[in-house]
C-alpha cells in the first residue's frame, strides 16, 4: 500500500481542479504539466478547469478493480469540458439508460473509494447530469 503522500500530493488537482496553461499557445493542461507538449514552453500559468462539459464516451464497468468492488456496476466517462480540457471520471446520479454521447454533465466533489478497513478515504471529482 502506498504512503499517504502519494494521495496528498494530488489534492490540488483532485479537490480544487487546479490545472495550468501555456502562456505561449494558450493550451490548458489537467493534470498540470511542467512543459507544454505542443510548443515546448516551460512558462506555465496556474489556472482551473471548467466545471461543466459533455460526455464524449462512456462505459459501464461490470468487473471492477478490488477497491471498487462495492460500487460495481458503475459508469465511467470521458468528458470534454467547456474549456476544451478532456478528463475521465465516474458518472453518477444518472441511470445507465440515460447515458449518451453529448449529454451535459457537471463536476461534483465526491468520495472515490476507501483504502481497506482502516486506510484513508479517497476523494475527488465525479460527473453528475447538468439539469
Amino acid at each position, binding site marked *: 500500500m502506498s504512503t499517504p503522500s502519494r494521495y496528498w500530493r*494530488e489534492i490540488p488537482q*483532485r479537490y480544487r481542479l487546479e490545472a495550468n496553461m501555456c502562456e505561449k499557445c494558450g493550451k490548458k493542461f489537467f*493534470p498540470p504539466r511542467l512543459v507544454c507538449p505542443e510548443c515546448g514552453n516551460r512558462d506555465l500559468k496556474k489556472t482551473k478547469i471548467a466545471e461543466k462539459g459533455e460526455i*464524449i*464516451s*462512456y*462505459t*459501464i*464497468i*461490470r*468487473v*471492477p*478493480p*478490488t*477497491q*471498487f468492488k462495492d*460500487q460495481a456496476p*458503475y459508469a*465511467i*466517462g*470521458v468528458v470534454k469540458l467547456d474549456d476544451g480540457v*478532456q*478528463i*475521465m*471520471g*465516474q458518472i453518477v446520479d444518472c441511470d*445507465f439508460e440515460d447515458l449518451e*454521447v453529448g449529454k451535459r454533465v457537471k463536476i461534483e466533489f465526491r468520495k*472515490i*473509494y476507501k483504502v481497506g478497513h482502516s486506510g484513508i478515504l*479517497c476523494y*475527488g471529482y*465525479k460527473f453528475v447530469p447538468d439539469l
Partner: protein
Amino acid sequence: MREVAVIGIGMTKWGELWEKSLRDIYVETALKAIDDSGVDHIDSMYIGSMSPGIFVGQEHIASLLADYLGYPHIPSTRVETACASGGLAMRLGLMEVASGMNDIVLVSGVEKMTDVGGDEATYALGTAADQEYECYHGVTFPGLYALIAVAHMHKYGTTRKQLAEVAVKNHKNGSKNPIAQFQFEVTVDDVLNSVKIADPLRILDCSPITDGSAAAIICPVEMARKMNKPVIKVIGSGHATDAIAISQRKDMTWLESTYRAAQSAYKMADKKPSDIDVFEAHDCFTIAELCVMEALGIVDKGKSGEAVEGGRTAVDGDIPVNPSGGLKSKGHPVGATGIAQIVEIVKQLRGEAEERQVEGARIGLTQNMGGSGASSVVHIFERE
C-alpha cells in the same frame, strides 16, 4: 546498417500452464528457437516482459533467464513497454545486429500470469494505464477499450455485430493453430450473449489471461543465406508513443502511435499497406483490431467494421489479419505477444502455417501495442 534476417522461431502451447514456472516456459521456447535456427551459440538476448514483479514477484529476470538458458554470462536485457514489450525486444535486437555490435541475438518475450488471482492480474494489467488519472476513477483495461468502442460506434456507426465478427474470425483461425490457448470456434450469438465486462464489451470481446513465451533468433542476412532454409528479412521497423491517458488524445478512435510506427516501418521498408500480404495485429479487444486496421492504413478511417464483416480480413480474404487467431484466441501473455506475432509471420512467409496458410504470402507485418495504444511497435518482413 547491416540487413537482418530471422533464422529461428520457437513457441510452445499457450494457456493456463499451472505446472510450469516462468523460467521453464521461457527456456523451452528459447531452446526451440535456437534449435530451429541451427546456431551453436547466441551472442546476446532481449526479453520482453511487462510485469514479472507483480505476476510472480520476480524482477531482474534478464539475468535469471540467461542463466537458466545456459548462457550465464552474455549480455541479457529485459525490455518493458507494457503489452508491446515483445515487439520492442525485437526492435532492440534488430538494432544490435544491424549495427554490427553482435551477430546472433535471441529476441523473446514471456509472461507468467496465472500465479496470481484475477484481481491481482487485473491490477497488474492496469498499471499500463495512468494510475493517478484513469485507474484512480475505477476504470479497467476492458473499460478503456470500451470507451474507445463507444466513441468509434458514435463517430462511424460501427456496430456491435461488427465487433463480434472480429472474435468470430480470430477464433476460427485459432481453432487451426495448435499452440493457441482457445482452439475452438465461436458464433456471433455466442459473443453477443457472453457475460458483460465493460459495456459494450463482453467476455468474448476480450483476450484472455495466459501463460506463455515466444522466441526468435536473428542474425545478419549474409549469415542467414549460408543456412539451408528460407531467408526471412526484417525490412522495416517502427516504434512510436502517444499520451498514456486516452482522455488526453485528440481523437480516442485514432491510434496515433500505431500510425506513426507503421509510417516509419513502411518508409524503411519502402513498402505501402497494399504491398503487405498478411498482418498480425494487436487485438487485445475486438475494437482494438478495428482501430489498428485503420491506423495501419489497410482501410480508410471508419471502414474497418465493414471490412471484417465482409470477410476481407479472413485467411482467404484480400487483407488477412491475425491468421494465428490473434490475441483473442491464441492468448495474450502480454510480454510474449509481440514475439508470437513475429513467429506467426515467419511461419506464414516460410509457407509453414498449414491450415492457416495465406496463399503465396511473401511480405508480412506485425503490429504490437502497449496499454490503450500509448506505445506501438511495427515490423515488416519479406521472404527473399
